[in-house]
């Protein structure tokens, strides 16, 4: 992205929309990556450490979805 000095006023709606789109993309990548990691027998602790969050946080966010998806879950 261009620096502040070259960012035109007209780009502001795009920039604001980019924030939401990047968050959405990050969520999509996280969902897909965590699913792939658990399917590949990574432990919740390993996934959590790789994401830089607690094991409890990653388990709370993804376990129900992955259980419903039929992914074999490791013991916490």
């Amino acid at each position, binding site marked *: *992205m261009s620096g502040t000095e070259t960012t035109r006023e007209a780009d502001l709606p795009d920039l604001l*929309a980019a924030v939401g*789109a*990047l968050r959405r*993309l990050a*969520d999509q990548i996280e*969902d897909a990556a965590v*699913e792939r990691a658990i399917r590949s027998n990574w432990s919740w602790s390993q996934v959590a450490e790789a994401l830089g969050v607690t094991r409890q946080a990653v388990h709370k966010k993804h376990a*129900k979805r992955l259980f419903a998806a039929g992914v074999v879950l490791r013991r916490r």
Partner: protein
Amino acid sequence: MSSGFGRYVHAVVERAGAEAREDGSATTEAQHLLLAIAAEHESTTDRILGSVGLDHRAIREALDQEFERSLSAAGVSLAAFGFSRATAGPDRPRLGTSAKLALERGFSSVARRSDLRPPHVLLGIVRAQVGTVPRALELAGVDRADLEGRVLETLKDDRQ
């Protein structure tokens, strides 16, 4: 609020939740309500959307374009990511801020709740001047103000 309208809103919110799940979204947003309205095929809203060339598929395509354009503003190419989509979760995503705002706008556009009709939900969505929906409408070549006018006209005709 008439029970018919209540049932309609319930059906739209339920469907919007399914759209959000398919989208991999943690929340149901205004764009999911718009997709749900198109999917519900209620006759008056169908007529309004059809008059500007919108149906479920056209809205979906416009939203995908909007996502790609917004990412590209930050120098990110969606095509550059070769990741496969995650499996959707079992829960219906909760209503997000833009969806709540759209519903509130629609509901508050009448003096009496008993006057609420299906196009009021659409009205609440198209009245947003910034955000994902107006950006997607622009990409679909739809004049947002004109669409709002068409919704209001339909509601006016409905009262006569």
